[in-house]
């Protein structure tokens, strides 16, 4: 069997099935480490076995069975040592469980991973590891720490869940609003992990983004009429607007196509319609707009415009300004600068960017020199633009982004 086919099947299973398998094993054994280890073992076994026997018709079921058997083996071994009655009882339920009846397990997993008693960095790391199935190395890279630091962080987080008695459940109604806010921020991070793929070569890891959208829909439904559902709707709309443009973001060779050059006929009208409906519903509820609602409103300006030139960049700039009030950040300011450049001309945008560069708050962030380079290029200052493109290249996190910048660099040095 071709390695490529096996790799693709494994990647697909990892994105869609890993969290479900882990969630199921945690539910039965109550042991996070055991659940993750056994799931990992199942994937490792798949690498060798699928290469010779072929990809099974139901990869998820195959992996679940292997992981389950592995857990039974390990529990049985420790049970003979300690004669632990409790573990034998677990063993019973483990052999009987039907995995797919536990459909809400991933939601339970998410709420537990996002419990406020865990440090924010631990919540994010745990969700990416356990729910999204990223490797510890990938998460470490994304957070600019060593793999051993990230390993320790995850071990400590799992240990605290057990030692502090953090419940493994979807919180009851009266706790949902506050817990949901924490979940939103982790879900958005998860979506972005899939969408902008800070790891690997593929720009879009569709299963991750789909998963984030699916879980956001679920959390929104759970929140019902609660005012906090409004932000959930905003987050949902934001994700849908991004996702709608998925097909148009890269060309046949996987290179980036920027928003202004994207083929708008490729944008998914169904996702855009759902996003607009979510945003309209959120607006109807008249809650004070938060970070997600404002970002969704910005994204909507782009997706409803018939062409890049027809985009209401004045409105985009004003929305970024409002966003900067709710959540001040140099990245928001950078985006406002780009919108200002589009509505008032490159000089006006460049002025804001130069202020940002002088403040040093975005040092090391590749989009700062990349944005500066684009504006310089538009102003015909090609030599300066080339310098900025080189600076951006040195900082760009993934290969697709590097290729994009290289193309632009070539254009300005031609």
């Amino acid at each position: 069997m071709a390695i490529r086919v096996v790799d693709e099947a494994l990647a697909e299973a990892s994105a869609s099935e890993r969290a479900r398998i882990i969630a199921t094993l945690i539910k039965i054994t109550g042991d996070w480490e055991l659940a993750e280890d056994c799931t990992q073992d199942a994937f490792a076994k798949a690498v060798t076995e699928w290469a010779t026997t072929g990809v099974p018709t139901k990869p998820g079921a195959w992996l679940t069975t292997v992981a389950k058997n592995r857990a039974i083996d390990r529990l049985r071994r420790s049970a003979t040592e300690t004669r632990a009655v409790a573990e034998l009882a677990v063993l019973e339920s483990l052999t009987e469980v039907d995995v797919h009846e536990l459909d809400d397990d991933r939601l339970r997993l998410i709420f537990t991973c996002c419990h406020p008693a865990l440090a924010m960095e631990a919540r994010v790391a745990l969700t990416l590891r356990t729910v999204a199935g990223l490797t510890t190395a990938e998460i470490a890279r994304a957070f600019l720490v060593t793999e051993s630091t990230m390993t320790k962080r995850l071990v400590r987080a799992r240990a605290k869940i057990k030692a502090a008695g953090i419940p493994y459940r979807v919180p009851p109604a009266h706790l949902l609003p506050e817990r949901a806010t924490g979940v939103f921020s982790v879900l958005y991070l998860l979506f972005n992990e899939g969408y902008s793929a800070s790891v690997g070569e593929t720009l879009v890891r569709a299963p991750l983004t789909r998963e984030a959208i699916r879980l956001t829909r679920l959390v929104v439904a759970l929140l019902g009429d609660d005012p906090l559902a409004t932000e959930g709707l905003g987050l949902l709309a934001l994700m849908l607007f991004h996702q709608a443009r998925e097909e148009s973001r890269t060309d046949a060779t996987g290179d980036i196509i920027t928003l202004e050059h994207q083929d708008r006929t490729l944008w998914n009208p169904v996702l855009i319609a759902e996003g607009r409906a979510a945003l309209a519903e959120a607006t109807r509820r008249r809650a004070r707009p938060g970070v997600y609602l404002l970002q969704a409103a910005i994204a909507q300006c782009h997706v409803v415009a018939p062409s890049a030139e027809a985009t209401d960049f004045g409105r985009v700039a004003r929305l970024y300004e409002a966003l900067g009030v709710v959540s001040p950040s140099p990245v928001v300011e950078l985006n406002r600068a780009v919108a200002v450049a589009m509505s008032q001309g490159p000089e006006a945008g460049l002025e804001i960017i130069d202020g940002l560069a002088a403040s040093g708050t975005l040092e090391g962030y590749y989009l700062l020199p990349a944005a500066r380079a684009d504006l310089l290029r538009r102003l015909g200052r090609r030599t300066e633009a080339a310098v900025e493109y080189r600076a951006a290249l040195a900082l760009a996190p993934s290969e697709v982004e590097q290729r994009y910048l290289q193309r632009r660099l070539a254009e300005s040095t031609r």
Partner: protein
Amino acid sequence: MQYMLLICTDATAPEDTGPSDIEEWVEEMDSRGIRLSGQRLRPPTDATVVKVRGGDVVVTDGPFAETKDWIAGYDIIECTDLDEAIEVASKHEMARRGQIEIRPIWPFE
């Protein structure tokens, strides 16, 4: 699961001059079978610190750490999980007037 609630002061807490409702809290948590025991503690000015160094008992006055905030009391509670412990702690008047640290009891196995 058993937890200890460390009832602490918090110099940064907003002024709360409302009437004390600690008796209602104790009554509720006792009747729910949650509160197993608990006491107030005298302030750090009444504390004594003991160390044995090189075989000698060294006694000093005052708390072992100089901090603005101090432990004013404790409760041992029995809860199903951390969320219940958080609910119990949040109803304690010192959650408003000070702060409460929830620490799981670590039993000997």
